[in-house]
């Protein structure tokens, strides 16, 4: 009897908080995300699946210049399930909606989205108030680039430079460690980068972001589309690498390599080269060539210094010679594509020292010059010496290769800062004579 009463009390205690402990989910936004409205909306309203606590500042609507355009405090309707804020008459332009309400269980649920009046709104990543990347985001992106370089460059090295050569089990084992770290790093840091970008757009600390609605970011932006495609793609690459290791079939590395190459395009198709004013297919191709050449170069250097050199003394000379030949082509592609992109993104030479993007580019170019000089030393001095049978067992060569790898990895850090810096604005292309005449 007593046990039954206790069980009933436990059940009641568990059942009672149901209405007071709930995590609210946003069901509908009006205007909806990404809407391009022909007329001014009178209100912004958000429909939730359950009752929420709304505050006067629960919905903040701002113009692209940061001007508040709400006409009064936010208030709840529909038994507390809908939160509404009245708007002033909105002129043509893009608007950012930031909202936050408190769920019954006390958690803050929040989100951000954009809409436009007679204009196409920007993606949430460029919403008003997004503060831009943090240092932590730079480090995450650096790790992401390094992961990509280890994966794509490592595979290229194994398939092209070591093609037709018998590799030792120790080399093979270490190769799989390197590309494995590369693919896992690409997946993990890709997810981290997505979350950090969302945190920036939402302007929320990470502990509150966990309940944020990420769908506008995932579905409505090039960045989100690239994130989806690359996460799915890298999971398949990981599976292919694993199967190649498990079955000892090198042929499975080829689809992993080609898929990795294809996935690199996700960065070019969602970055400055694709979305900035004046970008074209040429800037996208140049960006892609630049990125792929850099991945081959950095990943190849790491493979030579940390995989071939310590594990396969018999392959050192040949691998060094072959990589040296490939590296010459890579450096050519890297420099030509990089020079085109710099020309395309910096309208004036003075931008190199006057704007932040140019300054970061200068630092990157200096490091690249150092790495190229180091590479030239390897190409013109070390490679011929190795050909003559000298220095194969030299620790100096090993240290030198590691040094060049370290400089190359440092360049990736600068690249991580560069890709999140905004190039100086270009003036929009002028209308043609025919259009002017027509007007």
């Amino acid at each position, binding site marked *: 009897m007593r046990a039954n009463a206790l069980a009933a009390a436990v059940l009641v205690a*568990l*059942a009672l*908080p*149901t*209405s007071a*402990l*709930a*995590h609210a*989910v946003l*069901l509908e936004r009006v205007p909806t995300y990404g809407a391009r409205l022909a007329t001014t909306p009178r209100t912004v309203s958000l429909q939730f*699946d*359950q009752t929420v606590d709304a505050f006067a500042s629960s919905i903040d609507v701002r113009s692209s210049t940061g001007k508040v355009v709400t006409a009064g405090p936010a208030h709840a309707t529909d038994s507390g399930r809908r939160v509404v804020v009245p708007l002033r008459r909105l002129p043509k332009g893009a608007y950012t909606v930031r909202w936050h309400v408190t*769920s019954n*269980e006390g*958690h803050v649920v929040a989100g951000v989205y954009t809409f436009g009046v007679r204009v196409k709104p920007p993606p949430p990543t460029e919403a008003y108030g997004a503060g831009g990347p943090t240092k932590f985001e730079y480090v995450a992106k650096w790790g992401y680039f390094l992961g990509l370089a280890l994966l794509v460059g490592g595979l290229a090295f194994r398939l092209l430079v070591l093609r037709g050569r018998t590799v030792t089990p120790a080399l093979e084992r270490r190769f799989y460690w390197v590309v494995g770290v590369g693919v896992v790093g690409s997946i993990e840091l890709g*997810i981290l980068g997505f*979350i950090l970008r*969302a945190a920036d757009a939402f302007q929320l600390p990470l502990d509150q*972001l*966990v*309940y*944020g*609605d*990420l*769908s506008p*970011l*995932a*579905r409505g932006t090039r960045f989100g589309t690239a*994130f*989806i495609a690359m*996460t*799915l793609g890298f*999971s*398949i690459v*990981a*599976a292919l690498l*694993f199967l190649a*290791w*498990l079955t000892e079939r090198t042929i499975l590395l080829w689809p992993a390599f080609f898929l990795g190459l294809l996935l690199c395009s996700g960065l070019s198709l969602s970055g400055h080269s694709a979305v900035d004013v004046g970008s074209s297919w040429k800037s996208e191709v140049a960006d892609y060539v630049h990125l792929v050449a850099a991945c081959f170069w950095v990943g190849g250097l790491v493979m030579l210094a940390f995989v071939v050199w310590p594990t396969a003394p018999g392959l050192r000379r040949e691998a060094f010679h072959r990589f040296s030949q490939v590296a010459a082509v890579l450096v050519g592609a890297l420099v030509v594509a990089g020079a085109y992109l710099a020309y395309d993104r910096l309208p004036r030479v003075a931008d190199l020292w006057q704007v932040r993007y140019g300054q970061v580019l200068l630092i990157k170019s200096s490091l690249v010059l150092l790495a190229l000089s180091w590479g030239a030393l390897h190409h013109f001095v070390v490679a011929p010496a190795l050909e003559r049978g000298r220095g194969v067992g030299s620790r100096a060569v090993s240290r030198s290769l590691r040094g060049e790898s370290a400089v190359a990895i440092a360049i990736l850090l600068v690249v991580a800062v560069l890709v999140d810096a905004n190039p100086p604005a270009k003036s929009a292309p002028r209308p043609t004579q025919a259009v002017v005449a027509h007007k």
Partner: protein
Amino acid sequence: MEPPAEVVHWMFGVGFVFLGLCLLAEAIVGAEVWRRRRWRAYLWPGIAFLMGIFMWPVMVFYTSSAIHMLAHSAWAQVMMLVGAAQLGLVRGKLHNQLWELTLPLALVVSGLAFLIHEQNPWFFSRSAFLHHALGWTLLAGSVVCLGRAAQPRSPVFNAGFAVMIVAVAALLFCDRNVAPIFGHLSPLAGAR
């Protein structure tokens, strides 16, 4: 565009029930008989690995909250890890038996992911109840798997592991978006 959440749960339920039946069959007839045909040894680790790959689309397409996304990412990764480790052991590519510990580790991570990402109490809704039940089932299963790692031939631990997987499948099949038990509908009710 995406199927309703309940359908996705049922699809993974199919995977788990197949996985559980393979393990149950092995526990009943013994590893020697089960592995007379070599491909059978690869069966359950292969299914686990494949289910891990199929979890990634769920992770990237169901982004209603960050914590939801992270939980699915954790499940995708641990399923791939367990499948890969078991395949490596079966194939003879991995020799250290400590790799067996990936299984209890995966169950702990999966269970915690269920419990952390479910913000509502047990009786808030059917989905909340199922998430709690799944979380605690997986955590209990991790203890069984620890025993299995210590005594791989124990019929009790092997059968316990198999039954736990079948229970997970049953709980996944119980998911319904539109089922007003415990008073509340899932927020996903009626979603397409």
